[in-house]
């Protein structure tokens, strides 16, 4: 196996699998939180909003697990100083990021699997499973890269937590992630197309057979998501602080 890939898996194994093996309850706790909003929306809408709530919860979970990487990185950097050991070694920042992102994915796997299964149960055909998986991978990757970039600029753990909570609201609450994009006035609707999570939610809504706007297409959604992924990875590679200045 190529060394960077092996390194990434070993980092994920050390920080994810070994942790979970010794603290299995944390899997339960990290799996529960994405269902809280889904539960509330399901109850208050008498199930009418279930599909939007499922799409929104899946997107919000992906944003959360991706950005949680930023919190982990801040923790390893400022509290454990273990990042210093990685910096002064042949491990590249992107490999380190991938390793920790995979680790976060492990924590999120049960919730993501259940939410993806609900997407299929609530109307997506099995033929749309590749679309659902692609949406999950694109959003998780771009959010992880963004989490890495943001956390590398944070000097204190508390800053990282605050900034990440703020970004979470910007990406997963305000845009049409939990609600139909048609509810927005035209100007805000076009603005929301600049946000990657809008497209992720629309792709999931589309897979469940919900109506999507005429001006939007799957190709458009993919293009924006891929553009964000490339942009955030480039940002993480070139502008994230690995060696301090």
């Amino acid at each position, binding site marked *: 196996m190529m060394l960077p890939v092996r390194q990434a898996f070993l980092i994920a194994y050390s920080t994810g699998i070994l942790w979970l093996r010794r603290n299995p309850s944390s899997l339960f706790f990290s799996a529960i939180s994405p269902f809280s909003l889904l539960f509330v929306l399901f109850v208050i809408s008498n199930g009418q909003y279930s599909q939007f709530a499922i799409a929104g919860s899946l997107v919000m979970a992906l944003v959360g697990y991706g950005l949680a990487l930023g919190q982990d990185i801040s923790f390893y950097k400022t509290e454990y100083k*273990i990042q210093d050991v990685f910096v002064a070694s042949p491990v590249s920042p992107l490999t380190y990021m991938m390793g920790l992102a995979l680790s976060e994915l492990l924590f999120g796997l049960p919730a993501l699997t259940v939410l993806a299964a609900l997407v299929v149960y609530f109307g997506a055909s099995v033929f749309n499973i590749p679309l659902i998986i692609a949406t999950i991978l694109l959003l998780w990757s771009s959010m992880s890269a963004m989490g890495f970039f943001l956390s590398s600029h944070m000097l204190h753990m508390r800053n990282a937590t605050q900034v990440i909570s703020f970004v979470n609201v910007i990406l997963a609450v305000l845009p049409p992630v939990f609600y139909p994009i048609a509810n927005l006035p035209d100007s805000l609707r076009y603005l929301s197309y600049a946000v990657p999570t809008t497209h992720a939610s629309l792709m999931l809504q589309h897979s469940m057979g919900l109506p999507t706007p005429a001006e939007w297409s799957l190709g458009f959604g993919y293009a924006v998501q891929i553009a964000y992924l490339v942009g955030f990875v480039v940002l993480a590679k070139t502008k994230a602080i690995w060696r301090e200045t």
Partner: protein
Amino acid sequence: MLAIDSERLTKRYKGSSIAALNDVSIKVESARIFTLLGRNGAGKTTFVRMAATQLMPTFGSISVLGYDAVRQAKQVRQLISVVPQEGRPLRALTPWDHVYNWLQIRGEDKKIAKEKTEDILQKLELMQFRDRPAMNLSGGMKQKILVAMALAVDAKLLFLDEPTIGLDPVSRRQVWAAIKDWKAKGGSILLTTHYMDEAEILSDQIAIIDKGSVVAEGTIHDLRKIIPQNTRIDVAKDGLDIDMLKSYGSVVDTGAGTLRVFTFESSIRELSELALKRNLPFTVSPVTLDDVFVYLVGNLESGGQRA
């Protein structure tokens, strides 16, 4: 080839008007242990972090094992290993997990990683705790895990930033032995420490840093010569005339209620009688590295000052 060669290395942190490190030129020879001694905030860690490619310098140059540490960081990182200051192992991971996985991450195959892990855990007496998560280990054991990770790696240059902090005397000696073993294999080491005994036992060369600048450099023998006298007498401060004491040699206020007089053996009797007459406690001992350190940098906020 030099292990480290810095020229006028300077670091000024953003928002600070004072340089954390100022014009520091140091040459560390290969297969040697070079120690940076200094008070808290003197600039030791700043130097280590710049040499270990963790921190960018503001000015000056630094090469590590022949590579420019700024422009050729990738090459440098293949050849070094570090113990960061105040580092902590991951809570859920055992000593074995830390060392074995780290060696594999550094590119060792499983068989060699296993052998090296066993070897270093034995040396540092961590083997009996090999499967205990770090969260259930003492502070000293946790520190030894980080040392084990660094020493197990097949690097050419080791950066040890206060590696024995928090360790009991026995554990410190285990770490010293492991460091000496590592050097015997031809490795170079840059060490920082507050412990004078550690510096005396391990160092081939020492630089004393104060307020970001090197104030003295040399072997222990060279540094001891900074104080011309070979003996010291610590005497309670009360009631003694400093000017009178100065006639016997150099006088330093230790800041702990005593004056330290550096003098020659010929004056010991006279000074002892003086203290006895006034019923003042005193101690006599040869000049140590600790004295040189206090003599050079002991005039700071602790109250110690050249009297």
